């Protein structure tokens, strides 16, 4: 495999009228990436194609957020999530991701589609960063990654439940 990329404090931004688009197959392997995606993350399309989407995963992201994302996708529901991604250089960029299943003509899910937009910096700074920090600490506090994931997911669900009727509603209320 590729050498582990060391995250840096450099932030990459993109314009509000730009969308980072990618499509994946059912296993999360990239089947399409638009030029904005390639430009921001620093990987060429050739590198991105067929690569797992986790190629841009940032170590600051709690795993429970991805569990929630995949759980909702498994129910054929759209998901919104604030995600911190990591570019090839180790620089980071925040996105507000909208992930939806793609359906074939027979009505079956054929893959997933992700449109990522510039997030509201205030929400990222005031809500998301502290929240993810806490979830990450919970995950790190457990010896086994599995237990950590269970604990942080429960913590996330409790926070959701205390603030809104659903995760979706909470995200849109921010």
């Amino acid at each position: 495999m590729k050498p582990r990329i060391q995250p840096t404090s450099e932030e990459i931004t993109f314009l509000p009228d730009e969308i980072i688009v990618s499509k994946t197959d059912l296993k999360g392997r990239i089947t399409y990436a638009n030029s904005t995606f390639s430009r921001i993350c620093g990987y060429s399309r050739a590198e991105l194609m067929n690569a797992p989407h986790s190629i841009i995963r940032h170590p600051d992201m709690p795993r429970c957020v991805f569990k929630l994302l995949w759980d909702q996708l498994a129910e054929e529901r759209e998901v919104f999530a604030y995600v911190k991604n990591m570019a090839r250089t180790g620089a980071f960029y925040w996105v507000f991701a909208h992930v939806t299943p793609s359906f074939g003509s027979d009505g079956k899910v054929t893959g997933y589609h992700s449109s990522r937009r510039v997030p509201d910096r205030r929400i990222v700074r005031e809500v998301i960063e502290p929240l993810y920090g806490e979830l990450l600490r919970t995950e790190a506090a457990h010896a086994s990654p599995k237990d950590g994931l269970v604990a942080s997911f429960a913590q996330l669900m409790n926070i959701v439940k205390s603030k809104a009727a659903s995760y979706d509603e909470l995200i849109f209320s921010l």
Partner: protein
Amino acid sequence: MTNSSSRFEAFAPGLAVILLLAGAAGAVMADMPTVALCLIAAAAAGTAVVLVLALRLSAAVRRSIQVARALGEGDFEVRDLAFDQWGQAGELTEAINDMADHIDAFVREASAAMEAVRLNRYYRRILPNGMKGALLRASTTINEATDVIQERVEAFEISTDEFGATINSIVESLVDASRDMGGAATRLGEGASSTDQRASDAASSSSMASGDVQRVAQAAAQLTGSAREVGREVERSAAIAREAVSRADETQRIVAGLSEAAEKIGAVIGMIEQVAGQTNLLALNATIEAARAGEAGKGFAVVAQEVKALASQTAAATGEITRHISEVQAATRAAVGSIAGIGGTIAEINAITADMRGSIEAQIAATTEIAQGVGNASEGTRQVSDRIAGITGIARETSALAQGLFSTSGALSAEGDRLAVTVREFLVRLRRGPLDRRQAAERVPGGHAVTIASARGSFQATCVDISMTGGRFGGQLPDLRIGDDVHITGEADIDVPATIRWIRDGNIGVEFRQAEMTPAASNRLRRLVSKGRAMTAAA
């Protein structure tokens, strides 16, 4: 810049070939075959470049046509995957992919936002970032429409909540009032039946009293009669007493006459005693004379002796008569005294009788009054009896009315409850009416076995048909009621909460409680319905 470079890319190689060929023609005319050959070779090379460029562009155009066709057919998954080509081919690829991405994003956003509205979730808006031009305007329009729908739905919710609350409070009042009315009717009925009982008691008492009064009246009448009789008797005894008084007076006079006659007899007896004494004296003289006359006088002496004895006898007799007369006189005096006493007594009796007559007259007046009073009382008790009979009738009518009132209040209360249920259901339907109607058309045939669990037990059933909002199930149904909450589990072991909305012909219709459904359950339901729809469409 792009335009001029594109134009350069399109025309430069062709222009170069034309110039090279023109140069070659010039070289031939100038009789410079080497130069001409070189130029022709260069032109051939340029032509090859033109050809390659044309093929590249043609391939890019072909891919673009494929993507555009797929987009036209609504397939947003297809992209031109020949990335990072230089020049116009690369630009075309990126432009067509960018177009597909934006339309794809818009369609996903718009349909997700509309799906959310369909599920009565109004927080979901289209994210305007990344949208441009008409797509941005359409997004804004859809978001504004969602705002309006949300406002209307909220206003509608508030109105229906208020309406529901008002109806509920009316129904509560109605039920309370009818309960009070029922209570009042019960008490009224109890009162009426108690009145009836008491009136019956009073009627029998009054009837008895009436009989008593009747008897008293008769007794009073008899008493009056007796009093009159007594009066007459007293009158007669007074008359007898008066007669006795006059007789006593007469007797007194007679006795007084008797006393006078006795005194006269006494005087006569004195004379007789004188005669007898003289006779005795004569006889004594005769005896002496006869004794002197000796034997001649002897017979005479006997006569004288007898005269003497006669005189003695007379004297004795008169003495006895005197004694008798004295006795008669004493008796007469006693009789006079007695008669005088009798007269006094009779006078007293007379006076008493007079008094008695007054008393008896007062008594007669009193008994007459009593009789009259009793007669009135009798009439009174009869009227009381009549009125009590009337009261009994009214009490029975009241009792019947109270019974009617009680059942009416029960019916009223039941109607109130029914109204509350109807209104509640009406509001539920009203709130999701358009949704229901839309999805009623999407009802698809079922056929799979399910378990329906309710508070009345759990049973197996078969799904007849199903939609996103509800389903119809058949089977051996236990005693279920409309409004029962049930949980339906199918083969996938996913619990779908539902409420029974109707029971008919061995089938039940349930409405799914979507608010309580887990995402897995909604999803399972959606898959079932879409599968059914696909099967129906295939058939």
